[in-house]
């Protein structure tokens, strides 16, 4: 038995787990460890936090999980922007619950990232300093109520298409977080679709509002799958490690095929004159779409989207303005440590 510096129950802890695999595996040659790791991945075994893993695998995972967690947290902002203006109490409750879920999903993902020894505060610092990214889609503004629907239908739809394969990711804590997230997110996309449906079938003004939102969110949603396969920096290695299961273009194609009939059902058009069915595409045919404006994608990624500065500024302000609250709770805990410890009643 080894007492862990930071703890590791069931594979979620912890900051301070440090350099796993250094002690027990010291006897093994590096080649043997790599071979054992590769074999485990090939056999669809899950890699757990304290297993030996290549440094690059660890770095890729920390980067991806942190980015994913940041996306959930930043992603709260464009939707929270409408909580106070939701046009019915039912919609208000749905939206509040959804934004709350996003905070929860951020928390699951930060915990998963922490299993690799990087604390949440460190990750948040990197986000606030602009040294770690989040999904560029959240750098677009929510200008009307219909944008809440478009985010649910298109942005969450794209996210789900991306995330479902992650439930089988080779890294155990990430895969488990994704299972929970995907289960909870099933309502997010449906509420967006339903919201747009109500607008599309509503007054002419409401219909126009819905169409305008879809016009603005369609292309950025397609960009969510990342650059084309031949230009994607990390794809090939991530596929080999089974962090990623399908290529960017493959997932994008799948998403377009799903959306086209749904747009029809909504009575809304997708803003792409080149969009058409090609019976010869793939095995069963598929949609062809027009060219994506990758220059825009790169510009937003580099910080020149409509809301990049605003999003980070709000996140940083919340964190800084909350410092005295976190400090107070920590000070109280320290003062009362003797009496409180181990008093977590087992209900």
């Amino acid at each position, binding site marked *: *038995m*080894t*007492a*862990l*510096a*930071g*703890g*590791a*129950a*069931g594979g*979620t*802890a*912890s*900051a301070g787990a440090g350099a*796993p*695999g250094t*002690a*027990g*595996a010291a006897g093994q040659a590096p080649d043997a460890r790599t071979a054992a790791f590769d074999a485990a991945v090939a056999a669809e075994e899950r890699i*757990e936090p*304290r*297993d*030996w893993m290549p440094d690059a695998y660890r770095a890729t995972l920390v980067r991806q999980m942190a980015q994913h967690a940041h996306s959930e947290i930043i992603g709260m902002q464009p939707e929270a922007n409408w909580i106070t203006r939701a046009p019915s109490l039912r919609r208000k409750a749905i939206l509040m619950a959804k934004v*709350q879920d996003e905070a*929860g999903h951020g*928390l*699951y993902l930060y*915990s998963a990232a*922490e299993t690799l020894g990087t*604390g*949440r*505060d460190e990750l948040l610092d990197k986000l606030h300093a602009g040294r770690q990214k989040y999904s560029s889609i959240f750098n677009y503004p929510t200008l009307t109520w219909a944008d809440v629907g478009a985010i649910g239908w298109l942005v969450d739809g794209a996210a789900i298409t991306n995330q479902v394969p992650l439930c089988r990711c080779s890294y155990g804590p990430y895969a*488990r*977080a994704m299972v*929970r997230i995907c289960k*909870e997110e099933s309502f997010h996309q449906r509420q967006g679709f339903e919201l747009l449906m109500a607008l599309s079938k509503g007054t002419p003004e409401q219909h126009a509002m819905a169409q305008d939102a879809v016009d603005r969110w369609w292309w950025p949603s397609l960009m969510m799958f990342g650059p084309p396969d031949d230009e994607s920096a990390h794809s090939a290695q991530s596929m080999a490690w089974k962090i990623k299961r399908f290529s960017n273009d493959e997932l994008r194609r799948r998403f377009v095929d799903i959306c086209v009939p749904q747009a029809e059902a909504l009575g809304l058009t997708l803003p792409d004159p080149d969009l058409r069915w090609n019976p010869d595409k793939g095995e069963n045919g598929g949609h062809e779409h027009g060219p994506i404006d990758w220059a825009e994608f790169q510009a937003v990624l580099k910080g020149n989207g409509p809301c990049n500065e605003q999003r980070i500024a709000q996140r940083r302000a919340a964190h800084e303005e909350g410092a005295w609250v*976190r*400090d107070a*709770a*920590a*000070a*109280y*805990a320290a003062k*009362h*440590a003797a009496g*409180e*410890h*181990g*008093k*977590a*009643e*087992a*209900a």
Partner: protein
Amino acid sequence: MSERTDWPLWEVFVRARRGLSHTHAGSLHAPDAEFALRNARDLYTRRGEGVSIWVVPSAAVTASSPDEKDPFFAPAADKPYRHPTFYEIPDGVKHL
């Protein structure tokens, strides 16, 4: 106060319903045990997933090392007679 007071990490175990044991659900940050319980309630049971919660400071967990996996768990693997499938029972014999 210090410029940085990171809240410690806690492991959360949830009993999904009566008759089941507590199962590891995930982890979270909290300043103390009381808040760890409440945060766990808000985070891990907001869809009615639980009837009881345990929280344990992550630092208090002692774990076996995966690198010792083979020697540590191997003895249990070669005692198949502990499992019911080890025994051959003629077809038609019930309630065994």
